Protein backbone atom coordinates (compact mmCIF):
# COMPACT_ATOMS: atom_id res chain seq x y z
CA UNK A 1 0.00 0.00 0.00
CA UNK A 2 2.88 2.34 0.77
CA UNK A 3 4.09 1.75 -2.78
CA UNK A 4 0.70 2.63 -4.26
CA UNK A 5 0.44 5.68 -2.03
CA UNK A 6 3.84 6.87 -3.19
CA UNK A 7 2.86 6.32 -6.81
CA UNK A 8 -0.47 8.09 -6.25
CA UNK A 9 1.13 11.19 -4.75
CA UNK A 10 3.80 11.40 -7.44
CA UNK A 11 1.37 10.78 -10.27
CA UNK A 12 -0.91 13.53 -8.98
CA UNK A 13 1.90 16.01 -9.52
CA UNK A 14 2.90 14.56 -12.85
CA UNK A 15 0.61 16.63 -15.02
CA UNK A 16 0.70 19.77 -12.94
CA UNK A 17 -1.51 21.89 -15.09
CA UNK A 18 -4.29 19.34 -15.24
CA UNK A 19 -4.05 18.69 -11.53
CA UNK A 20 -4.18 22.42 -10.79
CA UNK A 21 -7.28 22.86 -12.92
CA UNK A 22 -8.96 19.91 -11.22
CA UNK A 23 -7.98 21.17 -7.78
CA UNK A 24 -9.22 24.65 -8.65
CA UNK A 25 -12.62 23.25 -9.60
CA UNK A 26 -12.79 21.15 -6.44
CA UNK A 27 -11.49 24.01 -4.31
CA UNK A 28 -14.13 26.39 -5.63
CA UNK A 29 -16.82 23.80 -5.02
CA UNK A 30 -15.72 23.21 -1.45
CA UNK A 31 -15.31 26.96 -0.91
CA UNK A 32 -18.86 27.51 -2.19
CA UNK A 33 -20.11 25.07 0.42
CA UNK A 34 -18.08 26.73 3.16
CA UNK A 35 -19.19 30.24 2.23
CA UNK A 36 -22.84 29.38 1.70
CA UNK A 37 -22.89 27.13 4.75
CA UNK A 38 -21.32 29.91 6.81
CA UNK A 39 -23.88 32.38 5.47
CA UNK A 40 -26.73 30.04 6.30
CA UNK A 41 -25.41 29.59 9.82
CA UNK A 42 -25.18 33.33 10.28
CA UNK A 43 -28.83 33.55 9.17
CA UNK A 44 -29.78 30.79 11.63
CA UNK A 45 -27.97 32.65 14.34
CA UNK A 46 -29.53 35.98 13.38
CA UNK A 47 -33.06 34.60 13.23
CA UNK A 48 -32.59 32.70 16.47
CA UNK A 49 -31.21 35.61 18.40
CA UNK A 50 -33.65 38.13 16.97
CA UNK A 51 -36.58 35.86 17.78
CA UNK A 52 -35.28 35.27 21.29
CA UNK A 53 -34.41 38.85 22.03
CA UNK A 54 -37.37 40.52 20.39
CA UNK A 55 -40.15 38.08 21.24
CA UNK A 56 -39.89 34.77 22.97
CA UNK A 57 -36.92 35.10 25.31
CA UNK A 58 -34.89 32.02 26.13
CA UNK A 59 -37.38 30.39 28.45
CA UNK A 60 -41.07 30.91 29.12
CA UNK A 61 -42.98 29.56 32.08
CA UNK A 62 -46.76 29.03 32.15
CA UNK A 63 -49.36 27.45 34.30
CA UNK A 64 -49.53 23.75 33.44
CA UNK A 65 -51.92 23.14 30.52
CA UNK A 66 -51.52 26.61 29.00
CA UNK A 67 -49.59 25.42 25.96
CA UNK A 68 -52.29 22.95 25.06
CA UNK A 69 -55.51 24.67 26.05
CA UNK A 70 -54.49 28.26 26.73
CA UNK A 71 -55.55 29.36 23.28
CA UNK A 72 -59.22 28.68 23.98
CA UNK A 73 -59.35 29.81 27.57
CA UNK A 74 -56.32 32.01 28.22
CA UNK A 75 -57.52 33.26 31.58
CA UNK A 76 -58.05 29.78 32.99
CA UNK A 77 -54.34 29.21 32.92
CA UNK A 78 -52.78 32.07 34.79
CA UNK A 79 -49.77 32.03 37.04
CA UNK A 80 -51.08 33.26 40.37
CA UNK A 81 -48.09 34.57 42.26
CA UNK A 82 -45.67 36.21 39.89
CA UNK A 83 -43.73 38.35 42.39
CA UNK A 84 -42.64 35.38 44.52
CA UNK A 85 -41.60 33.36 41.48
CA UNK A 86 -39.72 36.25 40.01
CA UNK A 87 -37.59 36.52 43.08
CA UNK A 88 -36.66 32.83 42.97
CA UNK A 89 -35.95 32.88 39.24
CA UNK A 90 -33.79 35.93 39.38
CA UNK A 91 -31.43 34.19 41.78
CA UNK A 92 -30.64 31.43 39.27
CA UNK A 93 -27.28 31.60 37.50
CA UNK A 94 -27.18 32.86 33.88
CA UNK A 95 -30.56 34.58 34.25
CA UNK A 96 -30.36 38.20 33.14
CA UNK A 97 -33.93 39.31 32.98
CA UNK A 98 -37.21 37.98 34.39
CA UNK A 99 -40.36 39.61 33.18
CA UNK A 100 -44.02 38.77 32.86
CA UNK A 101 -46.57 39.09 30.09
CA UNK A 102 -50.26 39.02 29.81
CA UNK A 103 -51.60 38.49 26.34
CA UNK A 104 -54.96 39.75 25.26
CA UNK A 105 -56.67 40.77 22.07
CA UNK A 106 -59.55 42.87 20.96
CA UNK A 107 -60.31 45.94 18.93
CA UNK A 108 -58.45 49.18 18.88
CA UNK A 109 -60.23 52.35 17.84
CA UNK A 110 -59.45 56.00 17.19
CA UNK A 111 -63.13 56.81 17.23
CA UNK A 112 -63.28 56.87 13.43
CA UNK A 113 -61.51 53.63 12.57
CA UNK A 114 -61.39 50.35 14.35
CA UNK A 115 -59.20 47.30 13.80
CA UNK A 116 -58.22 44.10 15.55
CA UNK A 117 -55.08 43.98 17.66
CA UNK A 118 -53.00 41.50 19.55
CA UNK A 119 -51.76 43.06 22.74
CA UNK A 120 -49.41 42.28 25.53
CA UNK A 121 -49.33 43.70 28.98
CA UNK A 122 -45.68 43.95 29.83
CA UNK A 123 -43.42 45.22 32.58
CA UNK A 124 -41.75 48.15 30.84
CA UNK A 125 -38.41 47.82 32.61
CA UNK A 126 -38.28 44.06 32.07
CA UNK A 127 -39.20 44.33 28.45
CA UNK A 128 -36.40 46.75 27.60
CA UNK A 129 -33.91 43.91 27.20
CA UNK A 130 -36.40 41.76 25.34
CA UNK A 131 -37.13 44.29 22.66
CA UNK A 132 -33.59 44.75 21.57
CA UNK A 133 -34.67 44.36 17.98
CA UNK A 134 -38.02 46.14 18.27
CA UNK A 135 -36.60 49.59 17.95
CA UNK A 136 -38.58 52.66 18.88
CA UNK A 137 -38.83 54.71 15.69
CA UNK A 138 -41.07 57.49 17.06
CA UNK A 139 -41.78 58.62 20.62
CA UNK A 140 -40.69 56.64 23.67
CA UNK A 141 -40.72 53.21 25.28
CA UNK A 142 -43.40 52.33 27.81
CA UNK A 143 -42.67 53.58 31.31
CA UNK A 144 -44.18 52.64 34.65
CA UNK A 145 -44.66 56.29 35.51
CA UNK A 146 -46.91 56.67 32.45
CA UNK A 147 -49.45 53.89 33.12
CA UNK A 148 -51.81 54.86 30.29
CA UNK A 149 -49.15 54.71 27.64
CA UNK A 150 -49.29 52.26 24.71
CA UNK A 151 -46.69 51.46 22.08
CA UNK A 152 -47.68 50.27 18.63
CA UNK A 153 -46.05 48.35 15.86
CA UNK A 154 -45.13 50.63 13.02
CA UNK A 155 -47.61 49.01 10.62
CA UNK A 156 -50.48 49.41 13.04
CA UNK A 157 -49.57 53.04 13.74
CA UNK A 158 -49.34 53.79 10.05
CA UNK A 159 -52.68 52.13 9.27
CA UNK A 160 -54.32 54.40 11.83
CA UNK A 161 -52.24 57.40 11.03
CA UNK A 162 -51.53 57.92 14.72
CA UNK A 163 -48.46 59.38 16.33
CA UNK A 164 -47.23 59.74 19.91
CA UNK A 165 -49.64 61.78 22.00
CA UNK A 166 -52.78 60.57 20.17
CA UNK A 167 -55.58 58.86 22.09
CA UNK A 168 -56.86 55.36 21.41
CA UNK A 169 -59.46 53.08 22.92
CA UNK A 170 -58.85 49.38 23.44
CA UNK A 171 -61.88 47.11 23.61
CA UNK A 172 -61.53 43.64 25.06
CA UNK A 173 -63.34 41.04 27.15
CA UNK A 174 -62.60 40.47 30.82
CA UNK A 175 -61.80 37.13 32.41
CA UNK A 176 -65.48 36.72 33.17
CA UNK A 177 -66.51 37.52 29.59
CA UNK A 178 -67.74 41.08 29.96
CA UNK A 179 -66.78 43.81 27.49
CA UNK A 180 -64.34 46.30 28.90
CA UNK A 181 -62.62 49.35 27.46
CA UNK A 182 -59.33 51.03 28.19
CA UNK A 183 -58.43 54.53 27.20
CA UNK A 184 -54.78 54.81 26.28
CA UNK A 185 -52.37 57.35 24.83
CA UNK A 186 -49.79 56.48 22.16
CA UNK A 187 -46.37 56.76 23.77
CA UNK A 188 -44.21 55.30 21.05
CA UNK A 189 -44.03 53.41 17.77
CA UNK A 190 -41.64 50.52 17.30
CA UNK A 191 -40.41 48.41 14.45
CA UNK A 192 -39.32 44.80 14.94
CA UNK A 193 -38.44 44.04 11.35
CA UNK A 194 -41.08 41.36 11.18
CA UNK A 195 -44.05 42.59 9.24
CA UNK A 196 -46.76 40.37 10.73
CA UNK A 197 -45.70 41.53 14.16
CA UNK A 198 -45.40 45.21 13.29
CA UNK A 199 -48.87 45.28 11.69
CA UNK A 200 -50.85 43.81 14.60
CA UNK A 201 -49.11 44.22 17.89
CA UNK A 202 -49.34 46.73 20.67
CA UNK A 203 -48.05 46.86 24.21
CA UNK A 204 -49.40 48.33 27.38
CA UNK A 205 -48.22 48.28 30.96
CA UNK A 206 -48.94 45.04 32.82
CA UNK A 207 -51.09 46.70 35.57
CA UNK A 208 -53.32 48.28 32.91
CA UNK A 209 -53.76 44.95 31.20
CA UNK A 210 -54.57 43.23 34.47
CA UNK A 211 -57.10 45.95 35.22
CA UNK A 212 -58.89 45.82 31.87
CA UNK A 213 -59.05 42.02 32.07
CA UNK A 214 -60.24 42.18 35.65
CA UNK A 215 -57.36 40.12 37.11
CA UNK A 216 -55.49 40.14 40.41
CA UNK A 217 -52.21 42.04 40.41
CA UNK A 218 -50.07 38.89 40.82
CA UNK A 219 -51.72 37.13 37.87
CA UNK A 220 -49.77 36.82 34.65
CA UNK A 221 -49.92 34.50 31.68
CA UNK A 222 -46.28 33.90 31.08
CA UNK A 223 -42.98 34.58 32.69
CA UNK A 224 -40.21 35.27 30.20
CA UNK A 225 -36.56 34.76 30.99
CA UNK A 226 -33.61 36.15 29.14
CA UNK A 227 -30.26 34.53 29.79
CA UNK A 228 -26.69 35.67 29.35
CA UNK A 229 -26.18 33.26 26.43
CA UNK A 230 -28.44 31.02 24.36
CA UNK A 231 -26.17 28.03 24.97
CA UNK A 232 -27.10 28.04 28.66
CA UNK A 233 -30.79 27.43 27.98
CA UNK A 234 -30.76 23.73 28.79
CA UNK A 235 -28.87 24.22 32.03
CA UNK A 236 -31.22 26.91 33.27
CA UNK A 237 -34.23 24.90 32.21
CA UNK A 238 -33.01 22.03 34.37
CA UNK A 239 -32.64 24.36 37.34
CA UNK A 240 -36.16 25.68 36.90
CA UNK A 241 -37.56 22.16 36.65
CA UNK A 242 -35.81 21.39 39.89
CA UNK A 243 -37.34 24.49 41.45
CA UNK A 244 -40.81 23.49 40.25
CA UNK A 245 -40.40 20.03 41.75
CA UNK A 246 -39.07 21.30 45.04
CA UNK A 247 -41.87 23.77 45.53
CA UNK A 248 -44.54 21.53 44.05
CA UNK A 249 -45.60 24.22 41.60
CA UNK A 250 -48.20 23.74 38.91
CA UNK A 251 -46.07 25.13 36.07
CA UNK A 252 -44.73 24.14 32.66
CA UNK A 253 -41.68 25.29 30.75
CA UNK A 254 -41.08 26.10 27.10
CA UNK A 255 -37.76 27.12 25.63
CA UNK A 256 -37.01 29.23 22.57
CA UNK A 257 -36.51 26.01 20.64
CA UNK A 258 -40.19 25.13 21.16
CA UNK A 259 -41.44 28.65 20.55
CA UNK A 260 -39.36 30.03 17.68
CA UNK A 261 -41.36 28.55 14.81
CA UNK A 262 -39.87 30.86 12.23
CA UNK A 263 -36.40 29.80 13.26
CA UNK A 264 -37.25 26.21 12.44
CA UNK A 265 -38.90 27.18 9.15
CA UNK A 266 -35.81 29.13 8.15
CA UNK A 267 -33.59 26.20 9.07
CA UNK A 268 -35.74 23.84 7.05
CA UNK A 269 -35.72 26.10 3.99
CA UNK A 270 -32.03 26.95 4.02
CA UNK A 271 -31.15 23.39 4.94
CA UNK A 272 -32.73 22.23 1.71
CA UNK A 273 -31.09 24.91 -0.41
CA UNK A 274 -27.80 23.93 1.17
CA UNK A 275 -28.44 20.26 0.38
CA UNK A 276 -29.06 21.15 -3.27
CA UNK A 277 -25.84 23.14 -3.41
CA UNK A 278 -23.99 20.23 -1.85
CA UNK A 279 -25.41 17.92 -4.46
CA UNK A 280 -24.38 20.25 -7.30
CA UNK A 281 -20.84 20.49 -5.93
CA UNK A 282 -20.67 16.71 -5.51
CA UNK A 283 -21.68 16.20 -9.13
CA UNK A 284 -19.09 18.77 -10.19
CA UNK A 285 -16.36 17.00 -8.24
CA UNK A 286 -17.39 13.60 -9.54
CA UNK A 287 -17.30 14.72 -13.16
CA UNK A 288 -14.05 16.61 -12.71
CA UNK A 289 -12.31 13.66 -11.10
CA UNK A 290 -13.74 11.12 -13.53
CA UNK A 291 -12.47 13.21 -16.42
CA UNK A 292 -9.04 13.72 -14.89
CA UNK A 293 -8.62 10.09 -13.94
CA UNK A 294 -9.86 8.84 -17.30
CA UNK A 295 -7.31 11.02 -19.10
CA UNK A 296 -4.55 10.00 -16.71
CA UNK A 297 -5.35 6.35 -17.19
CA UNK A 298 -5.43 6.67 -20.96
CA UNK A 299 -2.04 8.36 -20.98
CA UNK A 300 -0.60 5.73 -18.68
CA UNK A 301 -1.99 2.67 -20.42
CA UNK A 302 1.47 1.29 -21.16
CA UNK A 303 2.55 1.83 -17.57
CA UNK A 304 -0.49 -0.09 -16.42
CA UNK A 305 0.50 -2.89 -18.79
CA UNK A 306 4.04 -2.79 -17.42
CA UNK A 307 3.11 -3.01 -13.75
CA UNK A 308 0.68 -5.82 -14.54
CA UNK A 309 3.39 -7.66 -16.48
CA UNK A 310 5.60 -7.31 -13.40
CA UNK A 311 2.94 -9.15 -11.43
CA UNK A 312 0.70 -6.41 -10.05
CA UNK A 313 -2.77 -7.84 -9.62
CA UNK A 314 -5.86 -6.06 -10.88
CA UNK A 315 -6.81 -4.93 -7.40
CA UNK A 316 -3.37 -3.37 -7.10
CA UNK A 317 -4.08 -1.28 -10.19
CA UNK A 318 -7.48 -0.30 -8.75
CA UNK A 319 -5.83 0.65 -5.44
CA UNK A 320 -3.24 2.74 -7.26
CA UNK A 321 -5.82 4.88 -9.06
CA UNK A 322 -8.36 5.08 -6.24
CA UNK A 323 -5.56 6.30 -3.98
CA UNK A 324 -4.73 8.86 -6.61
CA UNK A 325 -8.35 10.04 -6.53
CA UNK A 326 -8.19 10.13 -2.75
CA UNK A 327 -5.02 12.23 -2.84
CA UNK A 328 -6.71 14.62 -5.30
CA UNK A 329 -9.68 14.74 -2.95
CA UNK A 330 -7.51 15.60 0.04
CA UNK A 331 -5.68 18.32 -1.90
CA UNK A 332 -8.98 19.66 -3.24
CA UNK A 333 -10.34 19.72 0.30
CA UNK A 334 -7.31 21.65 1.55
CA UNK A 335 -7.59 24.11 -1.33
CA UNK A 336 -11.30 24.49 -0.60
CA UNK A 337 -10.74 25.04 3.11
CA UNK A 338 -8.13 27.72 2.52
CA UNK A 339 -10.16 29.46 -0.17
CA UNK A 340 -13.45 29.12 1.72
CA UNK A 341 -12.12 30.56 4.98
CA UNK A 342 -10.41 33.45 3.19
CA UNK A 343 -13.58 34.22 1.19
CA UNK A 344 -15.77 33.98 4.29
CA UNK A 345 -13.57 36.42 6.20
CA UNK A 346 -13.27 38.74 3.20
CA UNK A 347 -17.02 38.86 2.50
CA UNK A 348 -17.77 39.50 6.18
CA UNK A 349 -15.16 42.25 6.24
CA UNK A 350 -16.51 43.97 3.12
CA UNK A 351 -20.01 44.05 4.61
CA UNK A 352 -22.34 43.51 1.66
CA UNK A 353 -25.87 44.84 2.20
CA UNK A 354 -28.82 42.63 1.29
CA UNK A 355 -32.47 43.69 0.85
CA UNK A 356 -35.05 42.62 3.46
CA UNK A 357 -35.84 38.91 3.37
CA UNK A 358 -39.50 37.82 2.91
CA UNK A 359 -41.63 38.67 5.95
CA UNK A 360 -39.19 41.26 7.12
CA UNK A 361 -38.90 45.00 6.71
CA UNK A 362 -35.21 45.50 7.40
CA UNK A 363 -32.26 44.69 5.19
CA UNK A 364 -29.14 43.20 6.67
CA UNK A 365 -25.41 42.92 6.23
CA UNK A 366 -24.03 39.61 4.97
CA UNK A 367 -22.08 37.80 7.62
CA UNK A 368 -20.31 34.53 6.87
CA UNK A 369 -19.54 32.40 9.90
CA UNK A 370 -16.62 30.00 9.77
CA UNK A 371 -18.38 26.92 11.12
CA UNK A 372 -16.18 23.90 11.95
CA UNK A 373 -19.00 21.48 11.09
CA UNK A 374 -19.40 23.06 7.64
CA UNK A 375 -15.63 22.96 7.06
CA UNK A 376 -15.63 19.29 7.96
CA UNK A 377 -18.57 18.64 5.66
CA UNK A 378 -16.94 20.42 2.72
CA UNK A 379 -13.67 18.53 3.24
CA UNK A 380 -15.45 15.23 3.63
CA UNK A 381 -17.46 15.79 0.50
CA UNK A 382 -14.34 16.55 -1.59
CA UNK A 383 -12.53 13.49 -0.34
CA UNK A 384 -15.41 11.05 -0.58
CA UNK A 385 -16.64 12.30 -3.96
CA UNK A 386 -13.13 12.22 -5.42
CA UNK A 387 -12.44 8.74 -4.11
CA UNK A 388 -15.76 7.35 -5.32
CA UNK A 389 -15.42 9.09 -8.67
CA UNK A 390 -12.08 7.40 -9.30
CA UNK A 391 -13.50 3.94 -8.66
CA UNK A 392 -14.96 3.44 -12.11
CA UNK A 393 -11.95 4.71 -14.08
CA UNK A 394 -9.71 2.63 -11.81
CA UNK A 395 -11.81 -0.45 -12.39
CA UNK A 396 -11.61 0.12 -16.13
CA UNK A 397 -7.85 0.57 -15.89
CA UNK A 398 -7.58 -2.76 -14.15
CA UNK A 399 -9.57 -4.48 -16.91
CA UNK A 400 -7.08 -3.67 -19.67
CA UNK A 401 -5.58 -6.47 -21.66
CA UNK A 402 -1.92 -6.56 -20.65
CA UNK A 403 -0.66 -7.35 -24.14
CA UNK A 404 -2.62 -4.53 -25.72
CA UNK A 405 -1.68 -2.12 -22.93
CA UNK A 406 2.02 -2.88 -23.49
CA UNK A 407 1.61 -2.08 -27.18
CA UNK A 408 -0.14 1.22 -26.40
CA UNK A 409 1.89 4.23 -27.48
Amino acid at each position, binding site marked *: MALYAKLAVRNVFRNRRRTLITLAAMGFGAAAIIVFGGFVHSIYFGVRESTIRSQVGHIQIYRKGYSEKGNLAPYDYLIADYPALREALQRLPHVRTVTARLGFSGLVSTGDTTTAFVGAGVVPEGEMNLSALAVIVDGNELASRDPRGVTLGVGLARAFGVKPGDDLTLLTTTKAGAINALAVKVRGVWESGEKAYDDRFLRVGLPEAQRVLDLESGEVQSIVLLLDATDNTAAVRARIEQLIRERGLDLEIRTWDDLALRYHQVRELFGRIFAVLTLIVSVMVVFGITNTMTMAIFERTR*EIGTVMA*LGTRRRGVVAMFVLEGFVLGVLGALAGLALGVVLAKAISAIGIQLPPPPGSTRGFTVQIFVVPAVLAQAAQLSIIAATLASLYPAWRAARVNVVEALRHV
Partner: protein
Amino acid sequence: MDDRVAVEHVSKTYRLGNVGVTALDDVSFSVATGEFVAIAGPSGSGKTTLLNLIGCLDTPTSGEIRIDGEAVSALSAGARADLRARKLGFVFQTFNLIPVLTAWENVEYPLLIHPREGRDRRARVAAALEQVGLRDRARHRPPELSGGQQQRVAIARALVGEPALVLADEPTANLDSATGRDIVELMRSLNRERRVTFVFSTHDPRIMSVADRLLEISDGRLR
Protein backbone atom coordinates in the same frame (compact mmCIF):
# COMPACT_ATOMS: atom_id res chain seq x y z
CA MET B 1 13.53 -32.20 -15.07
CA ASP B 2 15.81 -29.33 -15.92
CA ASP B 3 13.58 -27.43 -18.33
CA ARG B 4 12.73 -23.89 -17.32
CA VAL B 5 10.21 -23.54 -20.07
CA ALA B 6 8.38 -26.15 -22.08
CA VAL B 7 6.27 -25.02 -25.02
CA GLU B 8 4.06 -27.89 -26.17
CA HIS B 9 2.11 -27.69 -29.44
CA VAL B 10 1.15 -24.10 -28.84
CA SER B 11 -1.08 -22.29 -31.29
CA LYS B 12 -2.50 -18.81 -31.03
CA THR B 13 -5.27 -17.44 -33.20
CA TYR B 14 -6.51 -13.88 -33.03
CA ARG B 15 -9.83 -12.72 -34.33
CA LEU B 16 -9.61 -9.68 -36.52
CA GLY B 17 -13.21 -8.81 -37.31
CA ASN B 18 -14.60 -12.04 -38.75
CA VAL B 19 -11.27 -13.41 -39.83
CA GLY B 20 -9.13 -15.65 -37.66
CA VAL B 21 -5.44 -14.81 -37.92
CA THR B 22 -3.01 -17.52 -36.88
CA ALA B 23 -0.09 -15.91 -35.08
CA LEU B 24 1.46 -19.16 -33.87
CA ASP B 25 0.91 -22.58 -35.37
CA ASP B 26 1.83 -25.70 -33.38
CA VAL B 27 5.05 -24.46 -31.84
CA SER B 28 7.01 -26.76 -29.51
CA PHE B 29 10.41 -26.32 -27.88
CA SER B 30 11.95 -26.15 -24.45
CA VAL B 31 14.55 -24.02 -22.71
CA ALA B 32 16.93 -25.49 -20.15
CA THR B 33 18.18 -23.71 -17.04
CA GLY B 34 20.99 -21.30 -17.82
CA GLU B 35 20.31 -21.19 -21.55
CA PHE B 36 20.62 -18.00 -23.56
CA VAL B 37 18.07 -18.37 -26.32
CA ALA B 38 17.33 -15.95 -29.14
CA ILE B 39 14.10 -15.98 -31.10
CA ALA B 40 14.62 -14.47 -34.52
CA GLY B 41 12.30 -13.66 -37.34
CA PRO B 42 10.87 -10.80 -39.37
CA SER B 43 8.22 -8.39 -38.08
CA GLY B 44 4.86 -10.07 -37.67
CA SER B 45 6.37 -13.53 -37.59
CA GLY B 46 5.02 -14.24 -34.10
CA LYS B 47 8.08 -13.47 -31.92
CA THR B 48 6.24 -11.12 -29.61
CA THR B 49 3.20 -13.43 -29.42
CA LEU B 50 5.43 -16.29 -28.39
CA LEU B 51 7.18 -14.21 -25.72
CA ASN B 52 3.81 -12.96 -24.41
CA LEU B 53 2.61 -16.55 -24.10
CA ILE B 54 5.75 -17.70 -22.29
CA GLY B 55 5.48 -14.59 -20.13
CA CYS B 56 1.93 -15.53 -19.08
CA LEU B 57 0.66 -12.22 -20.41
CA ASP B 58 -1.57 -14.07 -22.84
CA THR B 59 -3.03 -17.55 -23.09
CA PRO B 60 -2.60 -19.97 -26.00
CA THR B 61 -5.59 -20.97 -28.11
CA SER B 62 -4.38 -24.55 -27.86
CA GLY B 63 -1.35 -26.34 -26.46
CA GLU B 64 0.32 -25.88 -23.10
CA ILE B 65 3.19 -23.92 -21.61
CA ARG B 66 5.01 -25.04 -18.48
CA ILE B 67 7.19 -22.76 -16.40
CA ASP B 68 9.33 -24.82 -14.03
CA GLY B 69 6.95 -27.65 -14.73
CA GLU B 70 3.85 -25.64 -13.83
CA ALA B 71 1.14 -25.58 -16.52
CA VAL B 72 -0.01 -22.01 -16.96
CA SER B 73 -2.85 -21.99 -19.50
CA ALA B 74 -5.52 -22.92 -16.94
CA LEU B 75 -4.45 -20.35 -14.35
CA SER B 76 -6.68 -17.40 -13.47
CA ALA B 77 -5.53 -13.87 -14.28
CA GLY B 78 -4.60 -13.31 -10.64
CA ALA B 79 -2.66 -16.55 -10.43
CA ARG B 80 -0.80 -15.68 -13.62
CA ALA B 81 0.05 -12.26 -12.14
CA ASP B 82 1.48 -14.01 -9.08
CA LEU B 83 3.40 -16.43 -11.27
CA ARG B 84 4.91 -13.53 -13.23
CA ALA B 85 5.93 -11.83 -10.00
CA ARG B 86 7.50 -15.04 -8.64
CA LYS B 87 9.17 -16.58 -11.63
CA LEU B 88 9.58 -14.15 -14.49
CA GLY B 89 11.56 -11.06 -15.32
CA PHE B 90 10.67 -8.79 -18.22
CA VAL B 91 12.80 -6.51 -20.34
CA PHE B 92 10.90 -4.44 -22.90
CA GLN B 93 11.88 -2.86 -26.17
CA THR B 94 10.80 0.54 -24.86
CA PHE B 95 12.34 0.02 -21.38
CA ASN B 96 8.99 0.68 -19.66
CA LEU B 97 10.29 2.11 -16.43
CA ILE B 98 7.79 3.93 -14.24
CA PRO B 99 8.72 7.56 -14.82
CA VAL B 100 7.68 8.85 -11.39
CA LEU B 101 9.92 6.38 -9.59
CA THR B 102 13.70 6.61 -9.22
CA ALA B 103 15.98 3.90 -10.63
CA TRP B 104 16.17 2.42 -7.13
CA GLU B 105 12.39 2.43 -6.71
CA ASN B 106 11.85 0.91 -10.15
CA VAL B 107 14.15 -1.97 -9.26
CA GLU B 108 12.48 -2.31 -5.88
CA TYR B 109 8.99 -2.48 -7.40
CA PRO B 110 8.79 -6.26 -8.02
CA LEU B 111 9.89 -6.91 -4.43
CA LEU B 112 7.18 -4.65 -3.06
CA ILE B 113 4.25 -6.17 -4.90
CA HIS B 114 5.11 -9.51 -3.35
CA PRO B 115 5.84 -8.93 0.31
CA ARG B 116 7.48 -12.35 0.64
CA GLU B 117 10.56 -10.51 -0.61
CA GLY B 118 10.51 -7.96 2.21
CA ARG B 119 13.57 -9.37 3.91
CA ASP B 120 16.97 -7.97 2.83
CA ARG B 121 15.19 -5.97 0.15
CA ARG B 122 17.59 -3.09 0.23
CA ALA B 123 20.60 -5.34 -0.19
CA ARG B 124 19.00 -7.03 -3.18
CA VAL B 125 18.10 -3.78 -4.90
CA ALA B 126 21.62 -2.49 -4.31
CA ALA B 127 23.12 -5.72 -5.65
CA ALA B 128 20.90 -5.65 -8.77
CA LEU B 129 21.89 -2.07 -9.53
CA GLU B 130 25.53 -2.96 -8.90
CA GLN B 131 25.31 -5.82 -11.39
CA VAL B 132 24.14 -3.51 -14.14
CA GLY B 133 26.71 -0.87 -13.15
CA LEU B 134 24.26 1.82 -12.10
CA ARG B 135 24.74 1.93 -8.33
CA ASP B 136 25.56 5.65 -8.59
CA ARG B 137 22.39 6.42 -10.57
CA ALA B 138 20.00 5.00 -7.99
CA ARG B 139 18.42 8.36 -7.13
CA HIS B 140 17.79 9.38 -10.74
CA ARG B 141 14.44 9.12 -12.40
CA PRO B 142 14.12 7.53 -15.87
CA PRO B 143 13.88 10.84 -17.80
CA GLU B 144 17.32 11.73 -16.38
CA LEU B 145 18.88 8.54 -17.71
CA SER B 146 20.06 7.63 -21.22
CA GLY B 147 18.32 4.88 -23.16
CA GLY B 148 21.09 2.41 -22.39
CA GLN B 149 20.98 3.29 -18.71
CA GLN B 150 17.21 2.90 -18.65
CA GLN B 151 17.51 -0.54 -20.20
CA ARG B 152 20.11 -1.47 -17.57
CA VAL B 153 17.68 -0.39 -14.85
CA ALA B 154 15.03 -2.51 -16.55
CA ILE B 155 17.40 -5.50 -16.51
CA ALA B 156 18.13 -4.90 -12.82
CA ARG B 157 14.36 -4.80 -12.24
CA ALA B 158 13.96 -8.09 -14.12
CA LEU B 159 16.74 -9.74 -12.08
CA VAL B 160 16.00 -8.48 -8.61
CA GLY B 161 13.40 -11.13 -7.82
CA GLU B 162 15.79 -13.90 -8.91
CA PRO B 163 13.38 -15.17 -11.56
CA ALA B 164 13.49 -18.57 -13.19
CA LEU B 165 13.52 -16.86 -16.53
CA VAL B 166 14.06 -13.41 -18.02
CA LEU B 167 12.11 -12.58 -21.17
CA ALA B 168 13.33 -9.74 -23.34
CA ASP B 169 11.35 -8.57 -26.36
CA GLU B 170 13.76 -6.85 -28.75
CA PRO B 171 15.74 -5.31 -25.88
CA THR B 172 18.14 -3.50 -28.20
CA ALA B 173 15.75 -2.26 -30.88
CA ASN B 174 15.49 1.25 -29.39
CA LEU B 175 19.23 1.61 -28.76
CA ASP B 176 22.12 2.57 -31.01
CA SER B 177 24.23 -0.38 -32.05
CA ALA B 178 27.09 0.18 -29.60
CA THR B 179 24.76 0.54 -26.66
CA GLY B 180 22.73 -2.41 -27.92
CA ARG B 181 25.85 -4.53 -27.95
CA ASP B 182 26.66 -3.45 -24.38
CA ILE B 183 23.20 -4.49 -23.27
CA VAL B 184 23.47 -7.89 -24.91
CA GLU B 185 26.92 -8.35 -23.39
CA LEU B 186 25.53 -7.45 -20.01
CA MET B 187 22.76 -10.02 -20.44
CA ARG B 188 25.27 -12.57 -21.63
CA SER B 189 27.60 -12.04 -18.67
CA LEU B 190 24.69 -12.25 -16.23
CA ASN B 191 23.73 -15.48 -17.94
CA ARG B 192 27.24 -16.91 -17.69
CA GLU B 193 28.10 -15.70 -14.21
CA ARG B 194 24.78 -16.09 -12.48
CA ARG B 195 23.14 -18.79 -14.65
CA VAL B 196 20.16 -16.52 -15.39
CA THR B 197 18.05 -18.09 -18.14
CA PHE B 198 17.27 -15.63 -20.93
CA VAL B 199 14.84 -15.87 -23.83
CA PHE B 200 14.90 -12.84 -26.05
CA SER B 201 13.69 -11.85 -29.46
CA THR B 202 15.69 -9.85 -31.94
CA HIS B 203 16.15 -9.28 -35.63
CA ASP B 204 19.70 -8.04 -35.23
CA PRO B 205 22.04 -10.72 -36.69
CA ARG B 206 25.01 -9.67 -34.53
CA ILE B 207 22.99 -10.29 -31.39
CA MET B 208 21.69 -13.62 -32.67
CA SER B 209 25.27 -14.75 -33.00
CA VAL B 210 25.81 -14.37 -29.25
CA ALA B 211 23.01 -16.78 -28.41
CA ASP B 212 23.50 -20.40 -27.30
CA ARG B 213 20.63 -21.35 -29.49
CA LEU B 214 18.67 -19.59 -32.17
CA LEU B 215 14.99 -20.29 -32.76
CA GLU B 216 13.94 -18.96 -36.11
CA ILE B 217 10.29 -18.25 -36.57
CA SER B 218 8.36 -17.19 -39.61
CA ASP B 219 4.63 -17.10 -40.29
CA GLY B 220 4.00 -18.48 -36.83
CA ARG B 221 6.06 -21.64 -37.26
CA LEU B 222 9.50 -22.59 -36.00
CA ARG B 223 11.94 -23.49 -38.75
